[in-house]
Protein backbone atom coordinates (compact mmCIF):
# COMPACT_ATOMS: atom_id res chain seq x y z
CA UNK A 1 0.00 0.00 0.00
CA UNK A 2 1.22 3.49 -0.85
CA UNK A 3 0.41 6.51 1.31
CA UNK A 4 -1.47 9.51 -0.10
CA UNK A 5 1.75 11.51 -0.23
CA UNK A 6 3.64 8.72 -2.01
CA UNK A 7 0.91 8.45 -4.64
CA UNK A 8 0.82 12.22 -5.14
CA UNK A 9 4.59 12.36 -5.63
CA UNK A 10 4.49 9.33 -7.90
CA UNK A 11 1.90 11.12 -10.05
CA UNK A 12 4.09 14.23 -10.22
CA UNK A 13 7.11 12.16 -11.26
CA UNK A 14 5.17 10.10 -13.81
CA UNK A 15 3.95 13.19 -15.65
CA UNK A 16 7.12 15.29 -15.20
CA UNK A 17 8.83 14.17 -18.48
CA UNK A 18 5.89 15.55 -20.45
CA UNK A 19 6.79 19.06 -19.26
CA UNK A 20 9.34 18.98 -22.07
CA UNK A 21 6.43 19.54 -24.44
CA UNK A 22 3.84 21.17 -22.17
CA UNK A 23 6.05 24.12 -21.22
CA UNK A 24 7.01 25.12 -24.80
CA UNK A 25 3.38 24.65 -25.84
CA UNK A 26 2.19 26.90 -23.00
CA UNK A 27 4.70 29.56 -23.99
CA UNK A 28 3.54 29.36 -27.61
CA UNK A 29 -0.09 29.53 -26.48
CA UNK A 30 0.50 32.72 -24.46
CA UNK A 31 2.63 34.30 -27.18
CA UNK A 32 0.06 33.62 -29.93
CA UNK A 33 -2.63 35.37 -27.90
CA UNK A 34 -0.50 38.50 -27.56
CA UNK A 35 0.59 38.39 -31.19
CA UNK A 36 -3.04 38.21 -32.30
CA UNK A 37 -3.62 41.40 -30.33
CA UNK A 38 -5.66 40.12 -27.38
CA UNK A 39 -5.75 41.63 -23.91
CA UNK A 40 -3.12 39.81 -21.78
CA UNK A 41 -5.58 39.30 -18.91
CA UNK A 42 -7.95 37.60 -21.29
CA UNK A 43 -5.25 35.33 -22.72
CA UNK A 44 -4.16 34.33 -19.23
CA UNK A 45 -7.74 34.01 -17.92
CA UNK A 46 -8.29 31.22 -20.45
CA UNK A 47 -5.57 29.12 -18.84
CA UNK A 48 -7.53 29.08 -15.59
CA UNK A 49 -11.07 29.07 -16.96
CA UNK A 50 -10.65 26.65 -19.89
CA UNK A 51 -7.31 24.97 -19.03
CA UNK A 52 -6.96 23.13 -22.33
CA UNK A 53 -4.03 23.98 -24.59
CA UNK A 54 -5.14 23.21 -28.12
CA UNK A 55 -8.65 24.54 -27.55
CA UNK A 56 -7.32 27.85 -26.20
CA UNK A 57 -5.26 28.45 -29.34
CA UNK A 58 -8.16 27.52 -31.62
CA UNK A 59 -10.46 29.88 -29.71
CA UNK A 60 -8.09 32.83 -30.09
CA UNK A 61 -7.41 32.11 -33.74
CA UNK A 62 -11.11 31.83 -34.57
CA UNK A 63 -12.06 35.06 -32.77
CA UNK A 64 -9.19 37.01 -34.33
CA UNK A 65 -10.11 35.56 -37.73
CA UNK A 66 -13.56 37.11 -37.37
CA UNK A 67 -15.54 33.99 -36.39
CA UNK A 68 -18.58 34.50 -34.16
CA UNK A 69 -18.36 33.84 -30.43
CA UNK A 70 -20.80 30.97 -30.92
CA UNK A 71 -18.52 29.23 -33.42
CA UNK A 72 -15.45 29.74 -31.21
CA UNK A 73 -17.21 28.49 -28.07
CA UNK A 74 -18.70 25.48 -29.85
CA UNK A 75 -15.29 24.56 -31.24
CA UNK A 76 -13.79 24.58 -27.74
CA UNK A 77 -16.59 22.31 -26.53
CA UNK A 78 -16.12 19.91 -29.46
CA UNK A 79 -12.31 19.78 -29.13
CA UNK A 80 -12.57 19.11 -25.40
CA UNK A 81 -15.35 16.55 -25.71
CA UNK A 82 -12.62 13.87 -25.75
CA UNK A 83 -12.53 14.34 -21.96
CA UNK A 84 -15.85 12.47 -21.87
CA UNK A 85 -13.92 9.37 -22.95
CA UNK A 86 -11.21 9.96 -20.33
CA UNK A 87 -13.92 10.39 -17.69
CA UNK A 88 -15.60 7.14 -18.69
CA UNK A 89 -12.27 5.31 -18.30
CA UNK A 90 -11.42 6.99 -14.98
CA UNK A 91 -14.91 6.63 -13.47
CA UNK A 92 -14.15 3.01 -12.61
CA UNK A 93 -11.21 4.01 -10.41
CA UNK A 94 -12.75 7.13 -8.88
CA UNK A 95 -16.05 5.52 -8.01
CA UNK A 96 -15.54 5.45 -4.25
CA UNK A 97 -14.95 9.21 -4.00
CA UNK A 98 -17.69 11.48 -2.66
CA UNK A 99 -19.64 13.54 -5.18
CA UNK A 100 -17.91 16.77 -4.12
CA UNK A 101 -14.46 15.20 -4.53
CA UNK A 102 -15.45 13.95 -7.96
CA UNK A 103 -16.50 17.48 -8.92
CA UNK A 104 -13.18 18.90 -7.71
CA UNK A 105 -10.88 16.28 -9.22
CA UNK A 106 -12.62 16.59 -12.61
CA UNK A 107 -11.08 20.04 -13.16
CA UNK A 108 -7.63 18.43 -13.19
CA UNK A 109 -8.25 15.83 -15.91
CA UNK A 110 -5.96 16.64 -18.87
CA UNK A 111 -4.58 14.49 -21.70
CA UNK A 112 -1.13 13.66 -20.34
CA UNK A 113 -2.34 13.37 -16.75
CA UNK A 114 -5.12 11.03 -17.79
CA UNK A 115 -2.70 8.92 -19.82
CA UNK A 116 -0.09 8.53 -17.08
CA UNK A 117 -2.58 8.05 -14.23
CA UNK A 118 -4.55 5.53 -16.27
CA UNK A 119 -1.36 3.51 -16.85
CA UNK A 120 -0.67 3.57 -13.11
CA UNK A 121 -4.28 2.69 -12.19
CA UNK A 122 -4.28 -0.35 -14.47
CA UNK A 123 -1.26 -1.78 -12.64
CA UNK A 124 -2.38 -0.83 -9.10
CA UNK A 125 -6.13 -1.42 -9.04
CA UNK A 126 -6.27 -2.32 -5.37
CA UNK A 127 -4.68 0.85 -3.98
CA UNK A 128 -7.00 2.73 -1.65
CA UNK A 129 -5.99 6.32 -2.41
CA UNK A 130 -5.49 5.93 -6.18
CA UNK A 131 -6.98 9.36 -6.88
CA UNK A 132 -3.96 11.04 -5.29
CA UNK A 133 -1.96 9.91 -8.30
CA UNK A 134 -4.39 11.78 -10.56
CA UNK A 135 -4.18 14.84 -8.31
CA UNK A 136 -0.39 14.62 -8.62
CA UNK A 137 -0.37 14.47 -12.42
CA UNK A 138 -3.17 17.03 -12.79
CA UNK A 139 -1.81 19.65 -10.42
CA UNK A 140 1.71 19.37 -11.86
CA UNK A 141 0.30 20.00 -15.32
CA UNK A 142 -1.87 22.84 -13.99
CA UNK A 143 1.02 24.69 -12.33
CA UNK A 144 3.30 24.29 -15.35
CA UNK A 145 0.54 25.37 -17.71
CA UNK A 146 -0.14 28.56 -15.68
CA UNK A 147 3.55 29.49 -15.47
CA UNK A 148 4.32 28.73 -19.10
CA UNK A 149 1.33 30.58 -20.59
CA UNK A 150 2.23 33.56 -18.37
CA UNK A 151 5.80 33.37 -19.63
CA UNK A 152 4.51 33.30 -23.21
CA UNK A 153 2.35 36.37 -22.57
CA UNK A 154 5.34 38.27 -21.15
CA UNK A 155 7.76 37.16 -23.87
CA UNK A 156 5.17 37.70 -26.60
CA UNK A 157 6.79 38.10 -30.00
CA UNK A 158 10.22 37.16 -28.61
CA UNK A 159 9.24 33.50 -28.96
CA UNK A 160 10.89 32.30 -32.17
CA UNK A 161 8.31 30.62 -34.37
CA UNK A 162 10.86 28.90 -36.60
CA UNK A 163 12.21 26.67 -33.81
CA UNK A 164 9.25 24.40 -34.50
CA UNK A 165 8.60 23.71 -30.83
CA UNK A 166 5.01 22.92 -31.69
CA UNK A 167 6.38 19.62 -32.96
CA UNK A 168 6.93 18.58 -29.32
CA UNK A 169 3.16 18.07 -28.98
CA UNK A 170 2.78 15.06 -31.30
CA UNK A 171 6.03 13.69 -29.82
CA UNK A 172 4.67 13.73 -26.27
CA UNK A 173 1.64 11.73 -27.40
CA UNK A 174 3.80 9.33 -29.40
CA UNK A 175 5.69 8.66 -26.16
CA UNK A 176 2.37 7.84 -24.45
CA UNK A 177 1.11 5.22 -26.92
CA UNK A 178 4.33 3.88 -28.48
CA UNK A 179 4.48 0.79 -26.25
CA UNK A 180 1.03 -0.28 -27.47
CA UNK A 181 2.54 -0.73 -30.95
CA UNK A 182 3.47 -4.21 -29.68
CA UNK A 183 -0.20 -5.23 -29.91
CA UNK A 184 -1.66 -5.63 -33.37
CA UNK A 185 -5.21 -4.76 -32.26
CA UNK A 186 -3.99 -1.45 -30.83
CA UNK A 187 -2.02 -0.73 -34.01
CA UNK A 188 -5.20 -1.18 -36.07
CA UNK A 189 -7.17 1.12 -33.74
CA UNK A 190 -4.41 3.76 -33.89
CA UNK A 191 -4.25 3.67 -37.68
CA UNK A 192 -8.04 3.89 -38.02
CA UNK A 193 -8.08 6.92 -35.71
CA UNK A 194 -5.08 8.61 -37.32
CA UNK A 195 -6.22 8.13 -40.91
CA UNK A 196 -9.78 9.20 -40.07
CA UNK A 197 -8.45 12.36 -38.44
CA UNK A 198 -6.59 13.27 -41.65
CA UNK A 199 -9.59 12.51 -43.88
CA UNK A 200 -12.00 14.41 -41.61
CA UNK A 201 -9.63 17.29 -40.85
CA UNK A 202 -11.82 19.85 -42.61
CA UNK A 203 -15.01 18.82 -40.81
CA UNK A 204 -16.71 21.76 -39.04
CA UNK A 205 -15.79 22.79 -35.46
CA UNK A 206 -12.61 20.63 -35.50
CA UNK A 207 -14.95 17.69 -34.93
CA UNK A 208 -12.38 15.28 -36.39
CA UNK A 209 -10.86 15.22 -32.92
CA UNK A 210 -13.88 13.40 -31.47
CA UNK A 211 -15.33 11.68 -34.56
CA UNK A 212 -12.11 9.77 -35.34
CA UNK A 213 -11.83 8.31 -31.80
CA UNK A 214 -15.47 7.21 -31.99
CA UNK A 215 -14.83 5.47 -35.32
CA UNK A 216 -11.69 3.87 -33.83
CA UNK A 217 -13.62 2.65 -30.76
CA UNK A 218 -16.23 1.05 -33.05
CA UNK A 219 -13.40 -0.79 -34.76
CA UNK A 220 -12.08 -1.80 -31.32
CA UNK A 221 -15.52 -3.22 -30.47
CA UNK A 222 -15.49 -5.19 -33.73
CA UNK A 223 -12.01 -6.52 -32.97
CA UNK A 224 -13.15 -7.64 -29.52
CA UNK A 225 -16.11 -9.48 -31.01
CA UNK A 226 -13.87 -11.10 -33.63
CA UNK A 227 -11.39 -12.25 -30.98
CA UNK A 228 -14.02 -14.25 -29.06
Amino acid at each position, binding site marked *: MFSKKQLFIRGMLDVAPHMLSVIPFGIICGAIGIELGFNPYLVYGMSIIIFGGASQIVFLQLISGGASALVATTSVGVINSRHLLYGAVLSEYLEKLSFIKKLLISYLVVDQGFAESNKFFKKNKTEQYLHYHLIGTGSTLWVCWQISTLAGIILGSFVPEELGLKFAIPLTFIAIIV*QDLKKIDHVIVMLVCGISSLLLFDAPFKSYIIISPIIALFVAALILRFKK
Partner: protein
Amino acid sequence: MTWLSIITAGVLTYFTRMTMIALVSRDMLGDRIKAVLSYVPSAVFPAIIFPAIFINDYGSFIEMNDPKIFGSIVAVIVGYFSRNVIATILSGLISYWIVLYF
Protein backbone atom coordinates in the same frame (compact mmCIF):
# COMPACT_ATOMS: atom_id res chain seq x y z
CA MET B 1 -18.24 39.82 -24.91
CA THR B 2 -15.11 37.74 -25.38
CA TRP B 3 -14.92 37.20 -21.61
CA LEU B 4 -18.46 35.85 -21.68
CA SER B 5 -17.63 33.36 -24.42
CA ILE B 6 -14.45 32.28 -22.59
CA ILE B 7 -16.48 31.59 -19.46
CA THR B 8 -19.05 29.67 -21.53
CA ALA B 9 -16.25 27.69 -23.17
CA GLY B 10 -14.75 27.03 -19.73
CA VAL B 11 -18.04 25.78 -18.31
CA LEU B 12 -18.53 23.55 -21.37
CA THR B 13 -15.00 22.18 -20.99
CA TYR B 14 -15.52 21.54 -17.29
CA PHE B 15 -18.70 19.62 -18.08
CA THR B 16 -16.82 17.40 -20.55
CA ARG B 17 -14.39 16.58 -17.73
CA MET B 18 -16.93 16.14 -14.96
CA THR B 19 -19.92 14.43 -16.58
CA MET B 20 -18.62 10.88 -16.84
CA ILE B 21 -16.61 10.95 -13.61
CA ALA B 22 -19.46 12.27 -11.48
CA LEU B 23 -22.45 10.61 -13.10
CA VAL B 24 -21.30 7.17 -14.23
CA SER B 25 -21.30 4.37 -11.68
CA ARG B 26 -19.70 0.96 -11.99
CA ASP B 27 -22.97 -0.84 -12.71
CA MET B 28 -23.68 1.36 -15.70
CA LEU B 29 -20.64 0.08 -17.58
CA GLY B 30 -20.72 -3.59 -18.52
CA ASP B 31 -17.60 -5.67 -19.11
CA ARG B 32 -18.00 -5.26 -22.88
CA ILE B 33 -17.94 -1.47 -22.63
CA LYS B 34 -15.01 -1.54 -20.21
CA ALA B 35 -13.09 -3.72 -22.64
CA VAL B 36 -13.75 -1.24 -25.45
CA LEU B 37 -12.80 1.68 -23.18
CA SER B 38 -9.40 0.10 -22.56
CA TYR B 39 -8.61 1.18 -26.14
CA VAL B 40 -9.25 4.88 -25.37
CA PRO B 41 -5.59 6.04 -25.41
CA SER B 42 -4.93 4.26 -28.73
CA ALA B 43 -8.24 5.52 -30.14
CA VAL B 44 -7.86 9.18 -29.09
CA PHE B 45 -4.22 10.28 -29.22
CA PRO B 46 -3.60 9.50 -32.93
CA ALA B 47 -6.25 12.18 -33.68
CA ILE B 48 -3.83 14.65 -32.07
CA ILE B 49 -0.63 13.07 -33.44
CA PHE B 50 -1.48 12.55 -37.13
CA PRO B 51 -2.78 16.05 -37.99
CA ALA B 52 0.08 17.64 -36.01
CA ILE B 53 2.59 15.76 -38.17
CA PHE B 54 0.97 15.50 -41.60
CA ILE B 55 -0.97 18.77 -41.87
CA ASN B 56 0.80 22.13 -41.85
CA ASP B 57 -0.27 25.47 -40.37
CA TYR B 58 -2.18 26.32 -43.55
CA GLY B 59 -4.33 23.20 -43.46
CA SER B 60 -2.71 21.30 -46.34
CA PHE B 61 -0.78 18.03 -46.41
CA ILE B 62 2.99 18.22 -45.98
CA GLU B 63 5.52 16.90 -48.52
CA MET B 64 6.89 13.39 -48.06
CA ASN B 65 10.36 14.82 -47.36
CA ASP B 66 9.15 17.07 -44.52
CA PRO B 67 11.51 16.89 -41.51
CA LYS B 68 8.53 16.18 -39.23
CA ILE B 69 8.13 12.74 -40.82
CA PHE B 70 11.77 11.86 -40.18
CA GLY B 71 11.56 13.21 -36.61
CA SER B 72 8.44 11.16 -35.89
CA ILE B 73 9.99 7.94 -37.20
CA VAL B 74 13.06 8.48 -35.02
CA ALA B 75 10.83 9.22 -31.99
CA VAL B 76 8.77 6.06 -32.53
CA ILE B 77 11.88 3.86 -32.78
CA VAL B 78 13.64 5.47 -29.81
CA GLY B 79 10.43 5.44 -27.74
CA TYR B 80 9.69 1.83 -28.54
CA PHE B 81 13.07 0.56 -27.40
CA SER B 82 13.93 3.06 -24.64
CA ARG B 83 10.46 3.18 -22.99
CA ASN B 84 11.49 6.68 -21.94
CA VAL B 85 9.36 9.78 -22.51
CA ILE B 86 12.24 12.29 -22.39
CA ALA B 87 14.33 10.24 -24.83
CA THR B 88 11.34 9.98 -27.18
CA ILE B 89 10.62 13.72 -27.25
CA LEU B 90 14.27 14.82 -27.42
CA SER B 91 15.27 12.34 -30.13
CA GLY B 92 12.29 13.44 -32.22
CA LEU B 93 12.99 17.15 -31.78
CA ILE B 94 16.73 16.88 -32.36
CA SER B 95 16.43 14.74 -35.49
CA TYR B 96 13.77 17.17 -36.76
CA TRP B 97 16.10 20.14 -36.17
CA ILE B 98 19.02 18.36 -37.82
CA VAL B 99 17.03 17.77 -41.03
CA LEU B 100 15.54 21.27 -40.88
CA TYR B 101 18.81 23.19 -40.55
CA PHE B 102 21.50 21.08 -42.24
